[in-house]
């Protein structure tokens, strides 16, 4: 470790300096969402937390996160009590901004510690070196910078818990891994998407022995009681006062549409893109166009999406597709329960839910991106599959921060990250043991070259040419482009996972 320059801590200091300078930068409505939660948890009795609806941004995270906000609010009162009033909608005093931004920076400590642990558990100097580069790539990831430090969320802390749990799985500390994951679920329920991988792996590796019928009763009881008591602590109180249905309706709002406002770059974005294209050529193919839904997917509202030419997608279909992919990787992990396959299955579960899920946010790309990073340097084939995801995943986050002042920083930072880390990955990644399965190399180069003019068009030229007209066009291009990269990365990794 000592010979590595720059060191992990040095990068950390540099990144923190940048994050501090970003305090006055653009922040999305998520800033107000979290401010409102601070106010709710601070000023109301827990029995009112999930009922309060003065602001449209109601509390829709599980109880642990609410408690986390309550803890933060205990410090917030020393900064400015104004932010703790439920009625102060869109309150944004200087103190509030500093407090909330600093809380993100400080809570990222969890991610930092988890990455340090990930480095420390490596046995050989070579794997330490590799782990060091992976950790740095995550610590300095443009995704966390854009989502957490500009857009405003607490993903650093959440993924820190996930990485702690994954490193525990890597060191066969399965009980703790399971407990950490259960805690994580009580912070943010989006991680339910990767829960099947945990379920299958813990069941196979921890609850069953070598032989499938050799049930480890003690382990089952330990794990079961731990998880039940964690969920009991989180939800017990709300169950006792009969608010579980109310809580669930907040956590799972099924009334939303298939595609989120910006079209997360998944299979449905490609589907919608195809639909848009078909509208123009449908008359020649004698297809019927549903004129009522012509404007639907382009309006970019959080609502129902309907298609003009292609059949509409009911939630059931997305659910079944996700499940189908997940089951395939669960079978594999059941047959080959080893730690690296487990992280692979977590990645694939994240991928599947991102690619086929219902109302997916572009931010959810972190779900496959973070676990995949841990595997990316296994050998050249993995790196080949990872690179399109790293490019597309980060570019797909650009529309989140759409103001002109942040354009230079998000692009420069992402380009810098890609430049430095792709080079660093190349220097340490071992050669593949077997032949490459997927022709990703060529695809990759073409794909990345297309990216540059695309970003220039979507971020600058479009507005120079069309002004504010056809606003959906750049978003649609970005989504379709990124969806293609993520799809390629997904398929490449899927093949590697099944054949490896």
């Amino acid at each position, binding site marked *: 470790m*000592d*010979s590595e*320059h*720059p*060191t992990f801590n*040095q990068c950390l*200091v*540099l990144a923190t*300096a*940048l994050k*501090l*300078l*970003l*305090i*006055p*930068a653009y922040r999305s409505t998520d800033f107000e969402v979290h401010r409102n939660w601070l106010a709710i948890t601070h000023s109301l009795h827990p029995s009112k937390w999930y009922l309060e609806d003065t602001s449209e941004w109601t509390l829709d995270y599980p109880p642990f996160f609410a408690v986390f906000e309550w803890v933060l609010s205990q410090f917030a009162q020393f900064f400015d009590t104004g932010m703790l009033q439920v009625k102060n909608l869109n309150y944004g005093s200087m103190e509030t901004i500093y407090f909330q931004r600093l809380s993100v920076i400080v809570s990222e400590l969890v991610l930092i510690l988890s990455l340090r642990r990930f480095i420390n558990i490596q046995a050989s100097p070579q794997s330490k070196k590799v782990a060091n580069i992976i950790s740095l790539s995550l610590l300095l990831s443009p995704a966390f910078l854009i989502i957490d430090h500009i857009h405003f969320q607490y993903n650093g802390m959440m993924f820190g818990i996930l990485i702690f749990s994954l490193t525990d799985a890597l060191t066969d500390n399965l009980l703790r891994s399971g407990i950490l994951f259960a805690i994580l679920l009580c912070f943010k329920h989006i991680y339910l998407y990767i829960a099947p991988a945990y379920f299958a792996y813990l069941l196979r590796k921890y609850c069953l022995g070598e032989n499938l019928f050799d049930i480890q009763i003690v382990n089952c009881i330990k794990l079961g009681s731990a998880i039940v008591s964690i969920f009991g602590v989180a939800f017990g109180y709300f169950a006792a006062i009969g608010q579980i249905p109310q809580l669930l309706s907040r956590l799972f709002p099924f009334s939303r549409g298939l595609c989120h406002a910006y079209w997360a770059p998944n299979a449905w974005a490609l589907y919608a893109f195809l639909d848009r294209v078909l509208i123009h050529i449908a008359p020649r193919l004698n297809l019927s166009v549903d004129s009522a839904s012509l404007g639907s997917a382009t309006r970019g509202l959080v609502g129902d999406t309907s298609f003009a030419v292609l059949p509409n997608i009911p939630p059931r279909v997305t659910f079944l597709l996700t499940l189908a992919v997940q089951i395939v990787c669960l079978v594999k992990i059941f047959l080959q329960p080893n730690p690296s396959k487990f992280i692979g299955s977590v990645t694939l579960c994240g991928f599947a839910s991102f690619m086929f899920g219902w109302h997916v946010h572009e931010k959810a790309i972190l779900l496959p991106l973070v676990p995949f990073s841990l595997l990316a340097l296994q050998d050249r084939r993995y790196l080949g599959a990872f690179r399109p995801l790293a490019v597309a995943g980060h570019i797909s986050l650009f529309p989140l921060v759409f*103001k*002109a*002042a942040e354009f*230079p*920083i998000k692009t*420069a*930072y992402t*380009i*810098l990250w890609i*430049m*430095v880390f792709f*080079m*660093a990955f190349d*220097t340490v990644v071992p050669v593949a043991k077997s032949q490459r399965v997927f022709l990703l190399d060529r695809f990759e180069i073409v794909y990345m070259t297309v990216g540059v003019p695309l970003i220039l068009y979507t971020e600058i030229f479009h507005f120079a040419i069309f002004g504010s007209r056809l606003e959906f066009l750049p978003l649609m291009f970005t989504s379709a482009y990124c969806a293609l990269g993520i799809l390629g990365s997904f398929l490449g990794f899927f093949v590697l996972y099944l054949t490896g």
Partner: protein
Amino acid sequence: MAPQPSGAGSNKPRKRKRHVRSYSLQLPSKPFPLASFIHPFRSSSMQRLVLPTVLTTAFIFRWAVTYGPYSGEHTPPMFGDFEAQRHWMEITIHLPISRWYWYDLQWWGLDYPPLTAYHSWLCGIIGSIVDKSWFALDDSRGYESYNQRVFMRATVAVSDYLIYIPSIVIFTKWYSRTTGTDKYDRYIGLAILLASPGLIIIDYGHFQFNSVMLGLAILSFASFLADRLLWGSLLFVMALCFKQMGLYYAPAVFAYLLGLCVSFGSGGGDEEGMNGGLNIAGLVKIDVQTLVLLGITVISTFGIIVAPFVVFHGAERGALEQLGQMVHRVFPFARGLWEDKVANFWCATNIVFKYREKLSTASLQKISLAMTILAILPFCLLLFLRPKKRLLPWGVAGCAWGFFLFSFQVHEKSVLLPMVAMTLVVAGGVDRDLLSWIGWANNVAMFSMWPLLRREGLGLQYTVLTALWSWLLSLHELPSSIFAKALHVGFYAGAIALHGAELSIKGGVVDRFPDIWVVGNVILCFGAFVAMYLWCLYRMADEAGLLDEMMLQQPAGEVEKERLKKVE
């Protein structure tokens, strides 16, 4: 240390006790974090990435500073420097050139030389394509909007990256060649220059275009290093024509060029281009040809830049009147000895001796002129007598310190000139002493601008940039001499105490003396700046070989020359 036969000592410079300023020989290399960040790029496969990476990182931090407020943001009626720059873009694109220096002078009348006006015109034209209302004549006074702000910030960034950044890249290349510094140290030097906080916070935070003037000046120094004297003087005149503050460097540049053209004695003079020179009594040789060419370059460059004002002087005024007005606007001698509190001699000693009450402005001007000349004389003389390439940045920095400390009408932001020039020497390789001094100088300069930055709400940017700078250079490690240690520690303790007191003490003393923190700042910084002036003098004399001569009683000049020839 006798001169060696030419083929023998290619690694000779390394063996000299003095000036072995390279960390690249140490493995692993981690003397300070900044060097550590450059470390991965030492391998040949990574080397092509070093410039893109360093420049992009520098850009990210620069742009991150723009999220802070600019000078005069949302503060009617007069706003601030941001409005001044915007206003110049407005008047230059709407008015004929003959009215630029005359139009409504009460509202931020143009008071910079012509090149700034042309630059403003270009920015204004481009901005007007995007949105006409940003620069509408008269109606746009005090105009502020989100997009306009981004545009204005972008003009600074683009100017910076078109002029200042390339110029320091080129300068580090030539200076490292002059001093025989290796690549790794050269890039460390470049990174230090890029990380220097003063220029970033004034240009990207406060809002000005100092980087254009400084960039042109540094590019001219680089040209001198590359033996392109005419290009260098052309660029230097351009720098002067962008911002008159470039005059701080002018005497040193003049002395250097004159020194190249004039040589004394029969042996050892600079032979290059001396063939057709004028020889006076075998004692002084003057290279008339170069001298004349330099003169022609300077005058014609000035001529071309001001020509539009002469040609298009308008119907109501003559050409001379136009030029007179330009000079009058650019050099406001009618104003007082100083305006805001600034850490120079006049302002600091004014606490004891009230100059403005006891002396007239005219006599003060004369006194200040005399003292300035006295202060810059040693540096100019050194450059004149020993016009060596490696001495150039030292001489320029010392000269600028002299101006800053003693001249008339100094602004707190003018500290950038000596500071940036002084920081240039890092391109010749760094050791702990140099690093601590340069780092300290930048910190003092930042602290001296604190009253201004605080007023404008740039506290966050000030804190982060200064702390980052101190950390990057490991400034907790002090220079070796006990005197320097005491000086640095004393200053840091004083600065921290002042900051702490300003934060915590309210009312009482502060109500009676509202300026108390600023006065404390001025006194502390003045002391530090004087120390820096002396240090520059000492280091320059050392680099010139004067100290060796004094101590060893033998001429080191020839040895030095031999050495440099090999290096070059």
